[in-house]
């Protein structure tokens, strides 16, 4: 592809920017799209080239009858979906998923708002603190989870021993051995690993708000909390909206944390739809049912995001 953007005749700035010159006929719309395409084509190509096939393949396998190693034994209609709906633990798993996504995202966003505000202040050693906050992001989620899992082992875990030594526990506790504590611990880790990214997105958002605005906010005479709510928070909204969307998606699709923390626990009481997909694949050897659940999973997260976009309108047109 040659570099087209510079060659594109610039749209008349006023009309393009403000979009006020209506009505427009079809040709105008099409030429607007035509002007947009060179800027969007690389992204579209990349998506079409890489994502389209595997996504379609996933949907295709969800209506096929596959052997445990993926040999195609012909069409299955909606049998895989039917099997899914008959799955007894599904309500519990869906409930877990809601608790998981909602709990982790809300906690993450609230803590991140405070943390971003804090890291935006000037104090000695701020750079070091900022660097420290990014570490859970730099480390892979699998590794972070593994070190927690290791540390919380009731026998050789350092965290458990520490909690006993400082008197918070009488004896080591099996955090990773029972569904509820393991699930809650996993949620804590999920918040922990989501904080850096969320905080930094918000921090970047704060950076675009200049001193003048903040001082203006304070001079209005309102208290700091009111100033924050009425001036800073609205200005943070774009960054906050993006961070929340990405968090919802990532947390929803998060696999390794629950897999490591609750993987040894029998039954389905600590599973979300995402971990259930992999139990279907690895334990039950039902790739086709897993594909059906993957499709369902995708539809759910798409629905959640659409509702979010509808309600929060981060991309409002004008």
């Amino acid at each position, binding site marked *: 592809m040659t570099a087209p953007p510079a060659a*594109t005749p610039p749209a008349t700035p006023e009309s393009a*920017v403000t979009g006020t010159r209506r009505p427009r006929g079809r040709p105008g719309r099409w030429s*607007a799209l035509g002007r947009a395409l060179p800027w969007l084509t690389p992204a579209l190509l990349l998506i079409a080239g890489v994502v389209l096939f595997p*996504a379609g*393949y996933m949907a295709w396998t969800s209506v096929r009858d596959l052997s445990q190693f993926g040999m195609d034994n012909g069409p299955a209609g909606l049998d895989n979906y039917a099997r899914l709906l008959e799955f007894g633990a599904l309500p519990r798993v869906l409930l877990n998923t809601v608790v998981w996504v909602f709990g982790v995202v809300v906690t993450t966003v609230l803590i991140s708002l405070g943390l971003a505000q804090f890291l935006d202040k000037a104090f000695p050693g701020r750079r070091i603190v900022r660097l420290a906050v990014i570490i859970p992001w730099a480390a892979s989620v*699998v590794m972070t989870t593994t070190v927690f899992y290791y540390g919380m082992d009731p*026998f*050789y875990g350092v965290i458990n021993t520490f909690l006993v030594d400082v008197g918070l526990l009488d004896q080591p506790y099996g955090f990773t051995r029972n569904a509820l504590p393991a699930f809650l611990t996993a949620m804590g880790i999920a918040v922990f690993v989501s904080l850096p990214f969320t905080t930094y997105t918000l921090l970047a958002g704060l950076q*675009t708000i200049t001193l003048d605005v903040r001082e203006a906010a304070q001079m209005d005479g309102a208290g700091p909390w009111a100033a924050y709510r009425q001036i800073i928070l609205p200005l943070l909204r774009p960054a906050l909206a993006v961070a929340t969307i990405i968090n919802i998606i990532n947390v929803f699709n998060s696999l390794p944390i629950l897999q490591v923390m609750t993987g040894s626990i029998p039954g389905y009481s600590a599973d979300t739809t995402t971990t259930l997909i992999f139990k279907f694949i690895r334990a039950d050897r039902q790739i086709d049912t897993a594909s059906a659940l993957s499709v369902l999973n995708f539809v759910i997260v798409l629905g959640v995001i659409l509702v979010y976009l509808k309600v929060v309108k981060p991309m409002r047109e004008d």
Partner: protein
Amino acid sequence: MAVTAPSPVSEQTGSTTGRPRRPRRGRGSRRRRGLLAAAGAVVALVFVAPYLIMLVGSFKTRSEILRVPPTYLPETWHPSNYVDMWSTPETPLPYNLVSTIVISVCATLLVLCVAVPAAYYTARFRFPGRLLFLLLVLVTQMLQPAVLAAGLFREFVTLGIHDTWLAMILVNGAFNLSFAVWIMHSFFASVPKELDEAAMIDGASRLQILRRITAPLVWPGVVTAIIFTFVNCWNEFAASLVILTTAENQPLSVALTKFVGQYESAWQYVFGVSIVGIVPVVVLFALIEKRLVAGLTAGAVK
């Protein structure tokens, strides 16, 4: 995007020329700064603590690391773990590090090249299908990579590029596009359009505007996008596991699993390799963080 209330922003741009960041007000500052620093130390400790366990563990021997009850500090420190792990029989670690670097750097560049124009244009211009495009980009993020791995492998086998870095650069590029586009979109959108218009009337091309005017203002967003993409590529596992089959091509994330055996695991190496994986990202961040702050102060528009 009109989320950003216009008035404070134009106020900002109106008064930014030569805006001095300092001096700050000195009111009650010393005690307050001390308290903030103390709070900062606590925050830093919380975020570092798990990785201290990792770091300390990486200096223990294989037997001490599973001692019951555990030791907080190694009885004797074994820095040799950090030497030995580069030449273990399990995995060619130097190659794995190179793979990780090449894939992450190239994929991040790819994402930038593809996402910046898209984010810029969607933030600046209305055109039919704009929202659809943004949603489509977002949809790619919603697909679970581990679920898609089977399809991806099949695709790259057909294209004849499985087991190559190129395949993983494309995969990482595609799956990180959405965040990059969205975050940069929100930052581009928050830059007042009046600036563009003024420049356009001056006869500047759209690219010149992007480069000279918009880009400095959106630095924090671009940097966030870079870090996000880079870190995700750095730690990507699910697709690499199946697409890269030659040990030398595999990234660190896959190499790590080679230290987990059927009956016992070399935890000291698992932890050591993890530390090796973390350090470059933190260094990168330390370098780029200056730009993030600089983006603020240099953001003044002439």
